[in-house]
């Protein structure tokens, strides 16, 4: 879909990571949870956030980023670490899905 890679550079200049970090922090605060530092190897299920928190994060990110990478695919495996989570949003961003690394 994007053989030159130029668009990939452009889209990656507006990274999703800060939006995701902000939403993790906001939801943790709203739900009274203690958030561990958001390192890439943080295992999501071992963070203090529960399933409701993750559900809210995904819903809010759909509003701010304009897409839900889980889409309607029922078989999409949920990311295990925070790094996986960010990568999941980065690689499934509309327009960059087919760009090789």
């Amino acid at each position, binding site marked *: 879909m994007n053989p030159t890679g130029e668009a990939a550079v452009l889209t990656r200049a507006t990274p999703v990571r800060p939006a995701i970090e902000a939403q993790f922090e906001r939801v943790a605060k709203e739900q009274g949870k203690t958030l561990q530092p958001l390192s890439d190897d943080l295992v999501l*299920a071992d963070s203090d956030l529960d*399933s409701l928190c*993750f559900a809210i994060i995904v*819903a809010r990110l759909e509003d701010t980023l304009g897409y839900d990478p*889980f889409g309607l695919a029922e078989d999409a495996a949920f990311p295990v670490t925070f790094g996986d989570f960010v990568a999941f949003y980065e690689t499934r961003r509309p327009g960059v899905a087919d760009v090789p690394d």
Partner: protein
Amino acid sequence: MFRTRQAPLLQALSDGGSGDASLRSAAASVVPGSLARLSSLGGRLDELRDRSVLVWTGDQLAAGLALIELDGVARRAVLCPPGLSATHLPAIMAKAGVEAVVCDGLRAGVPSSVAVIPCGTGLLPLAGERRDTRQTEWILLTSGTTGGPKLVIHTLASLAAPIGGGAPPARGSVWSTFYDIRRYGGLQIFLRALLAGTSLLLSSPEETTGEFLIRAAECGVTHISGTPSHWRCALMSPSARRIAPRYVRLSGEIADQGILDALRAAYPDAGIAHAFASTEAGVAFEVGDGLAGFPADLIGRGGAAVEMKIEKRTLRIRSARTAIGYLGGPSLKDESGFVDTGDLVEQRGERYFFVGRTDGVINVGGLKVHPEEVEAVINRHPSVRMSRVKARRNPIIGAVLVADIVVRAAPGDGEAIKSEILDACQRMLPPYKVPAAVHLVPSLEVTDAGKLVRRGA
């Protein structure tokens, strides 16, 4: 009289030879059989005899132990679910004629006119003999449209009656559940474990899913149940690989093919079943073929332990497991004794699939939410003209709530209003009833009859 009813719970425990089976939370482990000579109620059980008792605890194990002792003694046991707002207490207590409250800590909001009996997981010697004198009415709370929960009447018999099928668990089975035992789904597991004499591991709000799974693995859990949302969250954890259950059960939400396949892949040797149950309609059926939906031939089996029919596209159930009715509320059953579940079904080929609710109830991770209840909170904001709360499909917990709000002219700072509305919801509603997102919209569609259009709710 005694022959026609279920033996009180504690008597059933000793008759069933529960032995050293234990109930384990993250903080405590109790052998329920020891309640024959010990008490979780500080020896004050006699003060609760023949009374209507509210069980309002922070800890689910404390509530479970109190229930074991109250069955057959109290006239009525009203079980408060976790996170119940104290603002609903006066109405619940009035409706249930509550004369005493059993609680495990300081519980603000209990009127001084009722006796307060402390309970906990630390057992003390029982003062005097146990005497079971009566059948106890069990009251469970379910989400109501507005103005607080509905009170659903059960008895131990309706909660624990067998529905046929299912061999008794093998010795050495260890059960566990993600559910809280103060709600119907969890209470089922609690009672079935007690009556079968198996150990039961309870979850704790203080531990992460990963920590709970590690504890479950250490206890050698063999049977484990939760909602599809619980399981989606569990499968996110690397610790999900540590347990090796023989039996995995899902209920409380629609089990889609995705989660059934993911569980099959994670636990190839386990029996995986999804069940239908509700507080009002009881446990109805269990499907073990690994496919979403349920076989059409379950419908219309006359004389079965659980009879099911479809009328006006909704599933209706008649069995010994349905609730008796609502306390002080509308009638629950039709003239032939069927309970309308309110769950819409659709037949595709030889199978029925659940497709939504007649009453617009939204299922958030297994917990029911009436959108009207959330709208009532939002509409109290002075800038709000009208609001509509609807479901948005969510990959983790099935659905989350989204609020569309029309504000009065000159709304000023929209972000500030949204944030005030979210604050109000967080103060007044349990977390799962708080909208995940709030949108300001120019208008909302209203029918000719003046009602909000609730498509897709």
